[in-house]
């Protein structure tokens, strides 16, 4: 028998604490669309996506209605497009971006991720031309997300790619400067990119994945914050960790149910549940506020890294038991412009990029959705990417950089993207010149996996 208090708790989580399924993402392999003629390949890409994902949006909406759980985004992740470009090296890869955009409009999804290249050990045919086309692709499309994996624990860090990506990030912002540089908000540079991540902008369909798969990303920072708020002031950190675990369990069970239903109705195998705390700019849906509820006066103060480490770990411990397959990024996201508490902390100066970098060593992703001054040099952006990739490489975790150079703006001014991407202040960056290091190029060797101190 279902108990009244359980029903009321669920209703309250959904109605007042912003509990939702953040995304139902269909992964589609495009390996069989490879063709030496890019026009033929683009048609195959469009046909395959629209055939496989035809029912994705209506099915997700049906599940949303029956279970009474909001499913915020319906997305698609595809095979890294650079792999398709390899077969037609003399053609302009942007034709694939147009095909993806057309397919996204046809099936009604919010985003398609996978305008990507994996270059952690070097550039294969197609990788370089795809990377060069990213600024135009981000400027000329609205639903495409791009990612480039430039490092891994097994391969080291491709510093040639790091150098290139500093330039590409800046160009992407330049080409969309009339729209608050939004192009750069759809581009992420990764180290140790997961192949089954359902979240944007880093989602792509890895080569080891099946032909088609359903991955689900849950959310719920508001629910965790509310649970901690109910704890007495004298609750120990153990008690708080236990509360987070219990809450993460419930959230993930909901994600598992939605994933199973979607998988059954679409006749597509269930991949993973990504149990991430993904904030939105809405009040009460903030990861920063969870840290503040734990006892910090403001996110960014001393103690922030410790609180975030505990939160990240407790979310995983609670979620792992609730789902048959956990994967993706799984943990706590700390995007600045997408999180009301982070925005406030950045505005007040309590949260700095240096502190965010420390936080990325214990959170699930990296430097995410950070506005930086428009005059920041490409070399400094590359060096930020290299620092972040080094944290990921050494600690065997995913790290990422999604910074938005605010063209024509200085620290303290603001960018507004709207929707889930939010908006926020331009943050100060250390501009001391790392050019000589960045221009050396080459590859940082893969790290030793023992003698861990």
């Amino acid at each position, binding site marked *: 028998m*279902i108990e009244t208090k359980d029903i*009321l708790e669920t*209703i*309250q989580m959904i109605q007042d604490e912003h509990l939702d399924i953040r995304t139902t993402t269909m992964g589609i392999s495009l390996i069989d669309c490879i063709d030496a003629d890019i026009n033929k390949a683009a048609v195959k890409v469009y046909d395959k996506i629209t055939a496989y994902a035809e029912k994705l949006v209506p099915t997700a909406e049906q599940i949303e209605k*029956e*279970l*009474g759980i909001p499913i915020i985004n319906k997305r698609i992740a595809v095979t890294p497009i650079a792999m398709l470009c390899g077969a037609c090296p003399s053609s302009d890869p942007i034709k694939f971006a147009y095909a993806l955009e057309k397919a996204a409009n046809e099936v009604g999804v919010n985003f398609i991720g996978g305008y990507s290249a994996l270059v952690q050990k070097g550039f294969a045919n197609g990788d370089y031309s795809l990377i060069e086309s990213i600024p135009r692709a981000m400027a000329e499309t609205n639903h495409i997300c791009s990612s480039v994996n430039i490092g891994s624990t097994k391969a080291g860090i491709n510093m040639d790619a790091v150098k290139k990506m500093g330039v590409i990030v800046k160009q992407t912002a330049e080409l969309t400067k009339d729209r608050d540089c939004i192009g750069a908000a759809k581009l992420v540079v990764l180290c140790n990119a997961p192949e089954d991540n359902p979240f944007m902008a880093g989602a792509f369909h890895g080569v080891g994945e099946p032909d088609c798969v359903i991955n689900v990303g849950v959310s719920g920072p508001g629910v965790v914050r509310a649970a901690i708020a109910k704890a007495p002031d004298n609750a120990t950190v153990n008690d708080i960790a236990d509360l987070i675990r219990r809450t993460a369990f419930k959230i993930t069970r*909901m994600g598992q149910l939605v994933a199973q239903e979607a998988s059954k109705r679409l006749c597509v195998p269930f991949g993973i549940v990504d149990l991430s705390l993904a904030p939105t700019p809405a009040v009460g849906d903030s990861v920063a506020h969870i840290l503040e509820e734990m006892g910090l006066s403001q996110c960014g103060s001393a103690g922030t890294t410790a609180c975030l480490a505990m939160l990240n770990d407790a979310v995983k411990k609670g979620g792992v038991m609730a789902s048959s397959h956990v994967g993706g990024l799984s943990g706590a996201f700390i995007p600045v412009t997408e999180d009301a508490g982070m925005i406030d902390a950045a505005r007040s100066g309590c949260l700095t990029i240096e502190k965010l970098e420390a936080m990325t060593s214990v959170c699930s992703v990296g430097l995410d959705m950070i506005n930086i001054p428009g005059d920041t040099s490409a070399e400094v952006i590359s060096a930020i990417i290299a620092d972040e990739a080094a944290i990921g490489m050494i600690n065997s975790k995913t790290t990422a950089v999604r910074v938005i150079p605010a063209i024509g703006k200085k620290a303290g001014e603001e960018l507004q993207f709207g929707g889930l991407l939010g908006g926020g202040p331009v943050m100060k960056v250390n501009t001391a010149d790392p050019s000589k290091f960045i221009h050396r190029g080459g590859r940082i060797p893969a790290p030793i996996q023992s003698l861990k101190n």
Partner: protein
Amino acid sequence: MRAVITVVGKDTVGILAKVSTFCASHNVSITDVTQTVLQDMFCMIMICDTKDLNCPFGEFVDEADKIGADNGLSVRVMHEDIFNSMHRI
């Protein structure tokens, strides 16, 4: 299949009658009703059997939502699976 109907808001005369008439008109049998007060708000929970529902489930959800809107209340219909999966191992 069973559904859970929750009515949350300011108590109004005849709301139980309206919701139960709505259920009957769709061939939905009410198996249990409880009432409680949640943060000063009236809260009624009905467990229903929807196996003989005479319209698509989505339409039933929309109509319930409309009854809620017309009466200044929140009326939600949710499949029981969501509660079982969140609160049972």
